[in-house]
């Protein structure tokens, strides 16, 4: 943050920028707008009431009309300021609107009904966040269940993937054995066949293993990715063999060498892989879409997608839910941006 501020303040004072510098910063400024504004707009919108969302043209800041509770009326009444006509300057509450005329009362004198031309009144509005958009997700939409499904799948799949991949990477980086090249070739082979092209048989196998429409059906087949093996192996190759020999002389079993020496020493690579795995699983869409069919098993992504298709879903809830799905990743991003960037650069993608 300090970077950003010093950057902004320092450039302003400098008058001697070359025209290419202007171009550069112009481009970057546009980039910031294009990349961030949509997300910010989504965030702002998610705090607007349904009425405010339907407003065209939309306003930037979430606003709500002020209301007042008046004796004798169950609902809070919206407040208006009267800008012209008979009651000019007064603040009135509206009971109902009939055509071009509004029936209004003075809040301190609820019995006397006043008739006001609707053009004479102006809504009194204040900045207010429609947090009910969010709370309703928990009350009405079973959000917590989806959230739990996503968390469960993400964490278990990541654990399995890390364990299995680091074991394989250890074998492939630190042992010479016949068949090593074959296995390595096999790993490369699986790199060529992404899940997307074996959907049909993969689904059959998952079904035969009784994992269709279960969270495990998302977790287990997803763990068979070669990227992690590659990433970790590359890192483990840099651990000197002499350390392993030293451990062998120290009477450590091979398993102990693995988890007391190799795993701690590969921690940076494992951390990178963990972040990537969490991201992949959290954002996963196609495979869960195929495996999971009952609503109770939906992940956040699936729920979000099916919500937007449903007729009775309101944008207000949909936007709030989008924000909640986005939020964990955004937090991860803020804190671990550097690791993610280097991790992604070093794997060259999934």
């Amino acid at each position, binding site marked *: 943050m300090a970077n950003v501020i010093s950057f902004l303040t320092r450039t302003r004072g400098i008058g001697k920028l070359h025209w290419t510098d202007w171009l550069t910063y112009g481009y970057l400024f546009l980039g910031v707008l294009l990349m961030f504004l949509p997300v910010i707009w989504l965030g702002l919108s998610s705090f607007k009431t349904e009425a405010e969302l339907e407003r065209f043209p939309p306003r930037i800041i979430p606003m709500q009309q002020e209301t007042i509770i008046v004796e004798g009326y169950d609902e809070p009444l919206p407040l208006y300021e009267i800008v012209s006509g008979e009651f000019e300057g007064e603040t009135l509450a509206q009971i109902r609107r009939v055509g071009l005329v509004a029936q209004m009362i003075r809040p301190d004198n609820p019995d006397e009904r006043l008739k006001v031309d609707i053009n004479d009144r102006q809504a009194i509005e204040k900045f207010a966040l429609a947090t009910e958009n969010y709370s309703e997700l928990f009350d009405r939409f079973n959000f917590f269940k989806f959230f739990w499904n996503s968390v469960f799948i993400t964490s278990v799949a990541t654990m399995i993937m890390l364990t299995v991949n680091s074991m394989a990477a250890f074998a492939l980086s630190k042992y010479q054995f016949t068949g090593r090249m074959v296995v390595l070739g096999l790993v490369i082979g699986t790199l060529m066949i992404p899940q997307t092209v074996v959907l049909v*048989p993969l689904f059959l196998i998952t079904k035969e293993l009784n994992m269709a429409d279960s969270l495990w059906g998302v977790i287990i087949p997803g763990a068979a990715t070669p990227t992690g093996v590659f990433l970790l192996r590359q890192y483990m190759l840099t651990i000197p063999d002499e350390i392993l020999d030293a451990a062998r002389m120290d009477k450590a079993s091979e398993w102990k060498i693995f988890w007391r020496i190799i795993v701690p020493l590969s921690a940076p690579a494992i951390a990178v892989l963990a972040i990537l795995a969490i991201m992949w699983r959290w954002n996963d869409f196609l495979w869960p879409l195929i495996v999971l069919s009952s609503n109770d098993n939906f992940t956040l992504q699936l729920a979000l997608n099916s919500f937007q298709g449903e007729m009775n879903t309101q944008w207000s809830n949909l936007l709030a839910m989008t924000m909640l799905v986005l939020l964990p990743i955004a937090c991860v991003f803020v804190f671990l941006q550097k690791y993610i960037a280097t991790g992604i650069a070093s794997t060259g993608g999934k």
Partner: protein
Amino acid sequence: MLAILTPLMRVIEIPMTFLEKRLGMKNPAWLFLLPNLLLFGIFALLPVALNLAYAVTGSDAILLADRPYVGGDNFSALLQCDSYLDPNSCKDDLFWRAVHNTLLFVVLQVGLMVTFSLCTALILNRDIRARGFFRAVFFFPVLLSPVVVALIWKWILQREGILNAWIDGMGWQTFNWLLDRNWAFGWSVFLSIWAHMGFYTLILLAGLQAIPRDVYEAAKMDRATPWRAFRRITLPLLMPTMLVVLVLATIKGVQTFEEVYAFTGGGPGTATTMIIQYIYETGFAGAPRLFGPASAASLLLAAVLVVLTVVQLWLNRNNVDG
């Protein structure tokens, strides 16, 4: 984290050490490989074999035993076409529509995305302030899930969205973007670029930063203009990275599905239906599940991907030692 796992590791150690001793020191390697190989075997290799089997059998039964052998029928049905340029003349017009869409999508998306990524990387590689911040800005959308990306832009582009509000404010005619075939396709390309270009920018930036500074200094001593330095030094030295990026982007591009599906659902009509969506809808979403054509289409796609991946690995050969 290690602390949590310690008891578990202790427990695993008992059978592992036992097996190690029994099998001799010779190959504990296989013990470590076993779980991974099992997963690969069941969920990566077996499916490939089964895919072949599904592609040459018919009916909507899911069990292989119940499916009659039909030879190349699935393929010939897919490939039967009067003119490949006109999907309507094909037996399976949806498939060819998807192929056309995907091809056009890949050409536009990859071309534009790599261009923008290169521009961005070049700019980020300049001597600018707050480079880390700007890099992060461009990278941020990469982390978003496809559904979230789709919803963000849907919200902006909807009939009463902020884009139309702005257009209205300028006094122009508002437009229902996602109901128009061409605009829906165009925005799909845009959204896909928006979501992924940060990733390729990052790779290209790494490539640029790997070019040693003193090469440029030498060029400066040789009185090369910046433009010449770019043409004669940057571009040739960046070429290997560019190729990797192109191939990677193409591999991802032909598999495009998630964000576009969540964005337009493949519509309007079939305007944005991609190959993966065809496979998904034919094999899983339709009323009779037609596994045969879906598998056949998968195999055709797989063939393309294998070729692309071989190219990619070949380009990357220096990074993957034996």
